[in-house]
């Protein structure tokens, strides 16, 4: 283990931390509508999702061969830049979680890396045409497709079952939701855990601890799978509330239609080689399902905030990644330690801030808003 330097060890730990935030950020994608309609109890839902994410991590052999899918020049990427990029991604994931905004973990990772490489190796290390092709186009197209599909499906589902007894219909669609939500979780595990495995494996290769073209060692697969599974099980309840309750009030036929749309969009695009964000696909599906039912209220304010978060994700993570990269570049190991400590402090601050108005398994369905500020009553002692 001579090859594992301080920096490489820090990169591995940071990559696993990112994987963990990826898990709890994305639980909502698969499970938010099932939790909102009561198809699954909150704790059961996150358990199923967590287990399927771990299973998915072990199933998929197609580990990401490049860190970024060609968005940055991988030959110029050093472990220090990967570390800086991961810090940017983690902090953005935590901030959007605090605000209850479903933003894309993949975009956060891409953004962090772009910022870090830009500062570390110059702007020619970033392939901007690939950014448009792999990030921008799917980000616009995939939620639209999922939304339109879910809209049509929801409309027809209500039309077909209009004259049947309501309890009977609700019960059946709830059962269907369990299957559709599980498929989304499995697909998520095979995709997202691979990214972290790819990052760790490529770091080990660049440090000389693994040969070129080496696959991920078992401990990498196991730790990445466990990190994302554990994150999923802990559940990003703030984001689950926004996706299940905030965008629109979901009934079980809508939940089924939204999940069916998300699953098919994810699978068909993976099949045809499109990179896309699970988060954006699922949000699009939920909005479409909201529009497909007559009299359903779609909260455009929440949807608008979510879209703004999507737009800001990449540049914001890039900014943090860039700042971190410049400190690491000039400060060496000391700079790395400083950035790691600073990131820990900010992450700790965000967790503390979330405690002021916590969202958990017991209150996730109580309201449709995620607030950061404490209620008036709780503010009085702080002001005094």
């Amino acid at each position: 283990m001579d090859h594992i330097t301080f920096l490489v060890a820090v990169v591995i730990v940071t990559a696993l931390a990112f994987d963990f935030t990826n898990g709890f950020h994305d639980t909502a994608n698969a499970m938010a509508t099932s939790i909102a309609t009561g198809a699954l109890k909150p704790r059961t839902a996150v358990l199923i999702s967590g287990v399927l994410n771990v299973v998915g991590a072990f199933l998929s052999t197609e580990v990401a061969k490049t860190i970024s899918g060609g968005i940055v020049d991988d030959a110029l990427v050093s472990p220090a830049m990967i570390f800086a990029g991961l810090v940017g991604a983690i902090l953005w994931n935590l901030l959007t979680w605090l605000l209850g905004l479903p933003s894309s973990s993949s975009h956060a990772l891409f953004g962090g890396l772009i910022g870090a490489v830009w500062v570390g190796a110059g702007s020619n290390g970033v392939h901007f045409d690939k950014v448009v092709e792999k990030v921008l186009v799917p980000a616009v197209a995939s939620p639209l497709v999922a939304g339109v599909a879910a809209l049509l499906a929801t409309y027809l589902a209500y039309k077909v079952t209009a004259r049947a007894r309501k309890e009977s219909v609700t019960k059946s669609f709830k059962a269907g939701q369990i299957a559709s939500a599980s498929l989304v979780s499995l697909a998520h595990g095979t995709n997202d855990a691979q990214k972290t495995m790819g990052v760790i494996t490529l770091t080990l290769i660049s440090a000389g601890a693994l040969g070129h073209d080496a696959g991920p060692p078992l401990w990498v697969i196991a730790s990445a799978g466990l990190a994302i599974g554990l994150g999923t099980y802990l559940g990003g309840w703030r984001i689950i509330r926004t996706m299940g309750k905030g965008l629109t009030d979901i009934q079980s036929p809508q939940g089924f239609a939204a999940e069916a749309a998300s699953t098919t969009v994810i699978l068909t695009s993976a099949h045809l080689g499109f990179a896309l964000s699970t988060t954006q696909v699922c949000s699009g599906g939920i909005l479409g399902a909201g529009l497909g039912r007559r009299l359903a209220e779609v909260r455009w304010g929440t949807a608008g905030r979510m879209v703004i978060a999507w737009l800001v994700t990449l540049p914001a993570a890039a900014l943090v990644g860039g700042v971190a990269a410049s400190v690491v570049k000039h400060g060496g190991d000391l700079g790395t330690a400083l950035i790691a400590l600073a990131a820990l402090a900010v992450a700790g601050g965000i967790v503390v801030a979330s405690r002021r108005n916590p969202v958990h398994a017991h209150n996730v369905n109580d309201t449709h808003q995620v607030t950061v500020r404490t209620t008036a009553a709780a503010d009085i002692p702080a002001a005094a």
Partner: protein
Amino acid sequence: MQLDWTALGEVAAVSTGVTVGVVVVFALGVLGLARFEEARTDVGGTHALGLAQAALCFVACAAVVAYGIYLIVPQFH
């Protein structure tokens, strides 16, 4: 930079078609099951057609789910 509009259109068409298809077939199954349950509780009779419709539709949906799992798991390819 070149965008593969054909592939993009394919994803859009296939996704929409499959989603609408699965959800409508599932809804027809739900309708059949509901008819069967109504006949049993209200009239005390049975609605064989409804039950058969439900069974057929749910089997069709299960087949699509199985194909989805096949697509997700690379070991099956």
